[in-house]
């Protein structure tokens, strides 16, 4: 690598002609655009089909600023400030547009960006007074190729270094979390919107910078050459060929494409475009990880993007009388709540690992109410899934939430963790109203959750999953750009020990068994030092022997760390063994509340669970993972 760089540095001195340098700067441009595309497409999982729009905007902004003189609107800007300003324009517009379009996901984002690209080109064409319309704008020719060769070389090397560094910071990790499971990332405290829009804006600015450089060297812009979809296609193909989500992938892929074009396809004439289509299909079908991705596990496969998240599978088949909407969304609804004496309670492992946090004693002697929901209502169309439910969890308390299928448990969870909006009612945490906060803010206040259908980052290792689930609220800007710190790593180690996952530390989470994944998810909920954990069906799909382990671990966390739990459970025995108090929901409303033994004897509860008296009773205990899935 150093040799390549050295060769690039001395190339002009070796007597390379201007045309060679020109070729190289064009290649640098392709590489840079691909790197930028990979930041949103590969790292963050937002596949931008209109990325060339930022190139065009940068090119136009630069050209317009430089040719102001000609319009007698003032003095034309010198090249370098104009190019930098072009990047700023592209970056700001990317931030604004990304703010709107990044609310969309999967193909919808991609196509919205493609639409933005085409619309922007037509706007530039139509706004003739400023842009010269379809005629375009020209700049005086410039001479020094060598200067631009070095300028672009430095910029490309800088970009590579930056992405390499980013990959190792918490920021980079958070982007991967967004790619792998955006909803889960949000409930674990990552401010997904801000981070993804920030990276999108940066990518836009960086591509805009190269657009400005290109415009200056080309001395001419018109809508069709400044906004050409070829730049997007080359970036996508280069990145896919090289390796999606890797640092080296876009570089290797773009250079390989360049080489293919120069050497192989030159002889194919018009067939080379056909060959390009064939190549794309071949990459997608046969090498979805790309060249670098085959060696670099940190990359991703394009098969993983747009993968249907568990929550996104609507189950029309078992809709029936069940609250279809409620069950559908409920998949996404697990939450973990913890008490606020975080340092302590947060880390289940601290109990084992010694007293490094013992100086911060919990102030929970009075066990004040931590989470308080009042009159919570959630409707899906005509169906009221949660109907005026009051619920509260005190510090250090373990509360069970049970009820028959479709009774609204998970929807209530979704409301409490703010994954769902409320139709009425308030949620308070330590007396402060959190009814309108986004999920990541709730998480940062010390409420974490798990999901009925397990949401772990399946393609990351157990260790990475844990290290990603930190207390993001405390990270701050500097922390965002630094590596995972020693304390986080130690905490992850301790949690793995504690949750019996240590031997699997470097296995991808997707290879774990259901029970192990459940433990991991609990660990992820605990990593952020929560005060309250909302556990949705912690025993669903878990091997009975592991159920005992889970029970044991939860009890330990609760007693040693003072973490409060709210558990949705089908496994009534599990609830009875663990909980101080049980709340029973039926048809969206609260049916009963009391100690486990009170509940078990409540006739209303028995009827709700088992139907009218006299019907054959089945054993309510032990069968946690019933038909609700």
């Amino acid at each position: 690598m150093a040799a390549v760089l050295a060769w690039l540095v001395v190339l002009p001195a070796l007597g390379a002609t201007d045309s060679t340098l020109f070729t190289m700067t064009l290649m640098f441009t392709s590489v840079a655009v691909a790197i930028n595309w990979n930041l949103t497409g590969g790292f963050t999982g937002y596949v931008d089909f209109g990325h060339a729009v930022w190139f065009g905007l940068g090119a136009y902004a630069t050209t317009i600023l430089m040719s102001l003189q000609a319009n007698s609107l003032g003095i034309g800007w010198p090249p370098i400030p104009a190019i930098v300003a072009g990047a700023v324009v592209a970056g700001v517009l990317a931030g604004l547009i990304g703010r709107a379009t990044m609310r969309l996901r999967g193909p919808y984002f991609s196509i919205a960006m493609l639409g933005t690209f085409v619309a922007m080109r037509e706007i530039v064409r139509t706004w003739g007074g400023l842009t010269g319309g379809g005629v375009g704008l020209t700049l005086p020719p410039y001479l020094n190729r060598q200067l631009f060769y070095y300028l672009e070389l430095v910029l490309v090397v800088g970009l590579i270094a930056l992405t390499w560094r980013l990959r190792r910071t918490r920021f980079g990790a958070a982007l991967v979390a967004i790619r792998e499971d955006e909803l889960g990332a949000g409930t674990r405290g990552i401010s997904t919107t801000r981070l993804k829009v920030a990276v999108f804006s940066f990518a836009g600015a960086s591509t805009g910078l190269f657009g400005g450089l290109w415009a200056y060297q080309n001395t001419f812009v018109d809508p069709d050459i400044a906004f050409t979809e070829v730049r997007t296609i080359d970036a996508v193909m280069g990145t896919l060929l090289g390796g999606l989500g890797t640092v080296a992938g876009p570089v290797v892929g773009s250079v390989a494409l360049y080489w293919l074009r120069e050497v192989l396809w030159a002889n194919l004439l018009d067939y080379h475009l056909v060959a390009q289509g064939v190549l794309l299909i071949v990459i997608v079908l046969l090498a979805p990880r790309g060249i670098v991705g085959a060696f670099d596990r940190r990359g991703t496969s394009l098969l993983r993007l747009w993968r249907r998240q568990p929550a996104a599978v609507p189950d029309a088949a078992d809709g029936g009388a069940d609250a279809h909407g409620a069950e559908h969304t409920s998949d996404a609804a697990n939450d973990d709540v913890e008490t606020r004496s975080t340092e302590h309670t947060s880390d289940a492992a601290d109990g084992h690992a010694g007293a490094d946090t013992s100086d911060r004693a919990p102030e929970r002697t009075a066990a004040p109410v931590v989470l308080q929901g009042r009159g919570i209502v959630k409707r899906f169309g005509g169906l009221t899934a949660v109907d005026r439910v009051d619920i509260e969890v005190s510090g250090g308390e373990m509360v069970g939430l049970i009820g028959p299928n479709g009774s609204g448990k998970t929807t209530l969870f979704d409301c409490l963790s703010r994954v769902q909006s409320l139709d009425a009612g308030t949620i308070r945490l330590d007396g402060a109203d959190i009814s309108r906060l986004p999920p990541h803010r709730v998480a940062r206040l010390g409420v974490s959750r798990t999901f009925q259908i397990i949401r772990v980052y399946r393609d990351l290792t157990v260790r990475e999953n844990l290290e990603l689930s930190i207390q993001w609220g405390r990270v701050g800007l500097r922390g965002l750009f630094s590596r995972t710190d020693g304390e986080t790593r130690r905490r992850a180690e301790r949690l793995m020990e504690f949750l019996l996952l240590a031997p699997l530390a470097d296995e991808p989470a997707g290879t774990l068994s259901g029970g192990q994944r459940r433990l991991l998810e609990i660990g992820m909920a605990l990593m952020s030092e929560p005060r309250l954990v909302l556990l949705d069906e912690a025993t669903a799909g878990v091997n009975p022997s592991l159920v005992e382990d889970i029970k044991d671990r939860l009890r330990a966390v609760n007693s040693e760390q003072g973490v409060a739990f709210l558990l949705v459970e089908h496994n009534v025995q599990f609830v009875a063994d663990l909980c101080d108090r049980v709340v029973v929901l039926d048809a969206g409303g609260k049916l009963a509340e009391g100690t486990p033994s009170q509940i078990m004897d409540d006739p209303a509860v028995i009827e709700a669970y088992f139907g009218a008296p006299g019907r054959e009773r089945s054993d309510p205990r032990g069968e946690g993972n019933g038909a609700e899935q």
Partner: protein
Amino acid sequence: MVTLCALVLLVAACADGSDESADLPAAEGEFAGTIRLGAALSETGKYSVEGRDARQGYDTWLTWVNDEYGGIRIGDERYRAEIVYYDDESDADTAGNLTQRLIDDDRVDFLLGPYSSGLTSGASAIAEANGVLMVEGTGAADILFERGFQNLFLVATIASDYTRSGIEALAARGARTAVIAHEDTAFATAVADGAARHLEANDIEVLAVETYPKDIQDVSAIMTKFRDLGPDLFVGGGHYNDAVLFVNSAKELDFAPDGMLITVGPSNPKLVHELGGDVEGVLGPTQWEPSMAYRGPYFGSAADYAAHYQSLWGEPPVYQAASTTAAALALQLAIEAAGSTDTDAVRAALRELSADTFYGPISFDERGVNTSKPMGMIQVIDGDIVVVAPDDAASAQLLYPLGSEKGSSSSSWLGRFAQAVVNGIALGGMYAVLVLGFSVIWGVMGVINFAHGEFVMIGAYLAWLADDLWGVDPFLSVPAVFVVMMALGYVVQRVLVDRVIDRPHLVSLLVMFGLAIILQNAMKLIFSADFRRADTALDGSWRLTDSLTVPVTKFWILIIALGVLGGLSLMLARTRLGKGIRAAAQNREAARIVGIDVSHLYVIVFALCIGITGAAGALVSPVLAIQPFQGAPLTLKAFAITAMAGLGSIRGALGGAMVLGLVEAGLAVYVGGVGTNLAVVASFVILVAALVLRPQGLFGGLRPVDATAT
């Protein structure tokens, strides 16, 4: 007869050559040296056809100067000429890069221009920066010569003078009012701006100027506005495709000005071939025609040049070829006048040059533009392309006025509104039938068919072929195209789609995108990039009132579209197959569990939808510009309509298509000047807004859209 002529010409050319060879150096060894020229030309990409013509033009000069003329003469020495070519792939970046390579690596003495203004622009900037002369014949946009370059020379007439001689001739015959429509590109804008100037200079009032974007598919809104203005003259164009659209649309809307001057297209025999009688009387500028009365000491007359060219390449020269030959010839004359290959000396000689050639007189002004050669104007008369202006080049009398009845200029707002609605509904009907297959494939299979527009184009090409080969009306070939396209859909499903159906959407989308690239370029290899149009007997228009016409072809398209939509709705609602399709759309696994063979179902759905899509292409082939790369914009429109309407919703496809059609037609009619540009933007603004504001779609569909991120 034609063959015989060619033979005679061939013999004549050979005889010519042998005559002159008497005073030529017998062998190459007698050349004192070589003068090396270089050019980047488009062998591939969108300009590959014109690029080939340009190269044949250069090579015509090259063989002539070396083999017949005896080499470039400097003093008493003769120098062999050589041209180094590279393929610029019709790409501006590449053209610039190759120009640099020609200068640095090949050390050419002089440069010849690439094809088109767009490519010349970047290449000439490189030439200027390196102080190398470039003489060219095809980059005629004014903007190239407003940069103060010292090293760029154009032998052709500059764009702003394209219409000059034509307008002068028309003014002399009494034209008093005109309207202008032009594509919003460098070249077309320069032509139109020039036309506006020449019209005013000749006391012709310009009633309206409208612009429209490249790749436009429908100009009926512009023509509606123009019809209501009732001008003597229509001046418009920018692209071959636009000429087709204008001629069709004028007929469809019963808009018949006294003269139609279309800036690009009429001089191309293909247009007459495609449009037949509809193009009768249409006027167009031409740089050069073999019938022009120009003559010079080299190549003889224009007709002699044409014969020489024909003998070399087996086809008559188009003006692009004549222009590049003339460019090389002008450079040669300047070198000989300068008596050296020194750049400054040759530049000075070019500035002083004044020569009569087969191409017309050549002399350059201070910008480097040849201002002494006027543009010619041709008219299609009795199906032949004949030169009618300027007088000294004309071979026939200008036909003006065309003698048809003029449109009313007293259009009420109501009439205008009614026409906008009719245009919008007609457009909406087209969009509905075009989008249907895309919507259902996405809704049922979850596959985003990025090759959708290409399947439309294949269907349209099939209809065009049937029309071209056997004279079958496109409306009649629709069923056959449906069957053929179903078979193609079956193959694509089996070979490609089946492999990706269970993968995430991105995979199928990228695979279909790859297929789109393959199909586009395969179509281009088979059919060339020329625009085609199929002919139907169901054409023309019904004139309901003075200001309200109904286009016949689009009316029948709408009726058939409604039939197809209704039929498919009934099929989905009533039949077992339809119920199975809906079940599979809702939940693939559940459908499997209850015993539906989902894989089998997908084959049927995909083949059926491709069949419908291809048939829709055949259906709209009389009104659509058929060209390999015209499919991609349709895919985006399909996406916009589907996202707005709901996946797989047939009602939604119709509703969304109508909304888009009406918005486009309304914008184009009611917003002056740039309305048509805005109409193109509209579909994408609607798309993005619909997605962001109402991600579940407006009409509901076979499957939930669920587009939001969290």
